[in-house]
């Protein structure tokens, strides 16, 4: 579980993260990555930046739990989850999930599962800076429904 989760303000390098997942790992032929970025529109409003808050300690614990569940459920090799906090501008990376596996199907499923659960379980909150001012994002019921499909 060591070093599988990182909550950080700093940006991360996709290339470096994937290199770490692949290093001395000649058995896993499949690598699936997800990157979530700040987009310039949300619910019809122009977004100029995001601020991300989290609950230190609980976030890491929950993400580790989600990773443990993914490893029980699928045959996967290495896992890395990075989530940034603080102020992020349009186009910046917010979240990274990287998975290696001997089987691409397992890598795809575990990656999507981790993202779906992160979305509805991990204590992060986004505040958008839009053309109409600051606004805390509301949780979406579609995200809850998507996470429920795994159970």
């Amino acid at each position: 579980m060591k070093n599988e989760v990182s909550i950080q303000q700093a940006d991360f390098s996709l290339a470096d993260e994937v290199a770490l997942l692949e290093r001395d790992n000649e058995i896993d032929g499949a690598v699936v990555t997800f990157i979530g970025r700040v987009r310039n529109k949300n619910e019809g409003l122009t977004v100029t930046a995001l601020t991300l808050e989290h609950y230190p300690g609980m976030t890491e614990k929950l993400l580790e739990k989600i990773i443990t569940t993914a490893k029980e459920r699928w045959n996967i090799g290495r896992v890395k989850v990075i989530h940034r906090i603080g102020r992020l501008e349009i186009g910046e990376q917010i979240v990274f999930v990287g998975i290696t596996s001997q089987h691409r199907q397992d890598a795809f499923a575990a990656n999507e599962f981790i993202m779906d659960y992160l979305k509805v379980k991990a204590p992060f909150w986004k505040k958008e800076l839009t053309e109409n001012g600051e606004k805390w994002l509301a949780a979406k019921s579609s995200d809850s429904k998507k996470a429920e499909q795994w159970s």
Partner: protein
Amino acid sequence: MIKIVFFAALREQLGCSELSLDPTNILTINQLKQALIEHQPQWQTFIENNALLSAINHDMVDGEHLIKSGDEIAFFPPVTGG
């Protein structure tokens, strides 16, 4: 004593991120909510929000969950990360 922390929109609504309370006579999360409202009546609308989530020592819990001295209790809105 127990430590109580608030996050995100709730933190801003209450104008408070953290406080400590003597848990005497507070047995559950729901009772803690009542104590907070007595402590700050203007918090009532925000604390009674049905969508509010609560955690004890980093584990999600419901309103009937028991509180003990030394616990860290958190209240926060539905999460929106990712």
